[in-house]
């Protein structure tokens, strides 16, 4: 039994709410991707070079990236030759196999949820370029852990963008959790410091520290981030325990550069992909994993507060490539 059929069985057996959400959230993405695969399979009776060219196009248009696409197509091609497959539909299954393998090969078993420390606050630092949805994701994450009975503190470390402090403040009021804010243009590291002090005093379980959006090629802004991190770990040893990089699903190949740069200066422990409910395929998930080995931990599937799900590769590939016939 191939990996694909295994996947199919596994998912179909697992008819959960989460699956429905994935299928619904990825609906627009999938419609494009899987219908393209299907139409490809129906147009070709025989597998040849032209077929693989088109396969390449479909992957690249999903933002999977040139290098990884070439690898995946090459691997698929080889296996087709070895097994003597000529049926286009079978090749599509093989392709999903290869995408899966390339992701899983990169590493160990991943725990998506934040691992809490036994005592003292667990600190999560949230970073990313401008406009990816850091603040919204923080609110969603806070809600997730408040619902699990954790005491959460928000730290509004974006002192640069106009209205950023207010935005997080609104969320803290709606969620009913505490917040530490700073003044406009205050050194964000000092806001982080205040946050850590407060966290220790009031005995919270989780501190989520927002930062201003920054483009990864701005050296001084990246240094500022390292400073924030230093200040945090000075106050609370081994903190930040988690650093999430937020990436917009519509991002193209620059996403890999983002992950690389942020990883260098903050030791990113996980990626959160936002805006997956649009038409983008989020192929950057695979590209980042392939190049840097950073796992995706959560994905944002909508604008509602509950629309943040643990990332599940099975579900993602299934939702993207196959989905349910309706």
């Amino acid at each position: 039994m191939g990996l694909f059929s295994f996947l199919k069985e596994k998912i179909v057996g697992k008819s959960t709410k989460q699956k429905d959400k994935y299928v619904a959230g990825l609906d627009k993405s999938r419609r494009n991707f899987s219908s393209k695969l299907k139409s490809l399979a129906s147009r070709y009776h025989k597998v040849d070079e032209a077929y693989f060219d088109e396969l390449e196009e479909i992957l690249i248009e999903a933002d999977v990236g040139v290098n990884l696409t070439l690898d995946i197509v090459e691997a698929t091609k080889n296996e087709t030759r070895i097994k003597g497959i000529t049926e286009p539909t079978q090749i599509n299954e093989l392709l999903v196999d290869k995408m899966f393998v390339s992701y899983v090969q990169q590493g160990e078993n991943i725990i998506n949820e934040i691992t809490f420390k036994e005592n003292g606050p667990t600190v999560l630092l949230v970073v990313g370029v401008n406009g990816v949805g850091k603040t919204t994701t923080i609110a969603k994450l806070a809600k997730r852990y408040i619902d699990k009975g954790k005491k959460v503190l928000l730290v509004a470390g974006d002192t640069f963008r106009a209205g950023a402090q207010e935005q997080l403040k609104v969320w803290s009021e709606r969620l009913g959790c505490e917040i530490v804010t700073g003044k406009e243009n205050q050194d964000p590291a000092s806001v982080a410091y205040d946050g850590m002090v407060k966290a220790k005093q009031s005995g919270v379980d989780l501190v989520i520290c927002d930062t201003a959006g920054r483009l990864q090629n701005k050296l001084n802004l990246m240094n500022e981030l390292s400073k924030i991190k230093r200040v945090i770990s000075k106050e609370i040893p081994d903190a930040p325990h988690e650093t999430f990089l937020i990436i917009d699903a519509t991002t193209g190949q620059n996403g890999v550069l983002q992950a690389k740069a942020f990883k260098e200066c903050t030791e990113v422990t996980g990626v959160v992909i936002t805006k997956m409910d649009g038409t983008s395929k989020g192929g950057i998930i695979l590209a980042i994993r392939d190049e840097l080995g950073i796992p995706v931990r959560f994905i944002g599937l909508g604008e509602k507060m509950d629309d943040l799900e643990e990332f599940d590769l099975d579900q993602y590939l299934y939702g993207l490539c196959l989905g349910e016939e309706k």
Partner: protein
Amino acid sequence: MAFESLSDRFQAILKKIKGQSRLTESNMDEMLKEIRVALLEADVNFKVVKEFVNQVKEKALGQEVLTKVSPGQMLVKIVHDELEALLGADQCEVNLKARPTVIMMVGLQGTGKTTTSGKLAKLFKKKFAKKVLLVAGDVYRPAAIDQLCQVGKQVDVEVLNMGDSISPVEIAKMGVEKAKNEGFDVVIIDTAGRLSIDEALMQELKDIEDSVSPHETLLLVDAMSGQDAVNVARTFNERLKLSGIVMSKLDGDARGGSALSIKHLTGIPIKYAGVGEKLDDLEIFHPDRMADRILGMGDVVSLVEKVQEEIDEKEAKKTVNKMMNGKFDLNDMLAQLEQFNKLGPLSGLLKLIPGMPKISEEDQEKAQKQMKKTKAIIYSMTPRERQDPSIIKNSRKLRIAAGCGMTSYDVNRVLDQYEQMQKMMKQMKNRMPNGRFPGMR
């Protein structure tokens, strides 16, 4: 190597074929492959890349082979011409003739609509002396209205804030009404970010369009966006009458290929480019120059314009004349450093100069730091010392060093620098026909 900039990649390719006397099918193939990968990594749409590569190939293998230029030059020209054609021929700005001119900003979440609204307001105000009204139409994202109000304050432009309990359509109508009554020249309507597939929210934009019929509807496109950007632009364009694209975050290291494909596949012109976080950082988009930049030929015209805008001409003339008369002192050197600083980070400037793309971020950072140090040292001198540096001997050096927290070695370095500059001035003066710069009085 993956993810070299498009310029680096092209430069590497061109270096490869530089020594070769003719374009053959085989060396062309290699180059075209590289070009293809480079463009795809720059997020240029797959179909556009295909078209582009084929066009370049056809032209290169065609008639030009017999001309006198070297094959390398020839290929640069072909790639450049094709790239320029892809980017669109002319630059175009927003037309502000109508009073009031109504501009609507639309786009996905997080593309920079609110910031760009502020930048546009500043541009219209500063460059065209227009009275601008910003309209806060994003009633969905928490604190989005706050953000626009703060931005408005920074650029000193009035913001219409109706709160978040009125429909955006009503807010837009009131904005235009207010502009008509109070004599505003330009109305910029900020809207909430939305997915192109969100039926209800897209209809809302359509309703705004129907009720205020904007003269311009600008779609914000993130320079970092991937292959799907074309589909997004198409959907927005199907629902609304888009009049232009604003590319945001072009100061990042994303190559912005997606926005280029949007131009090519939808025909909507790119009008402005966001190039930084400050509210000044908006430029008119120049397609021809962008092609040059992609090819690594630098963007000299942009540089000249930037310099002209920021350098205080009187100040500069004063310095030059002083230099020419041999009266250049440390005060002038300081003034020069200040002028230079006004141009913004060194990195931005260097990128615009041809043949200089190889300076690393660290080196630029160092140069920037060095300049800061030099300034600190000069600030620690007395006015007399600045006017006549020759009086600075050992004990003065120690005092200056202590004043700025550096060593006398650092002070020596600045003095050496000053002497070198003075020497250069003298040499220059001797070369000028009448001891003056041409064009300077």
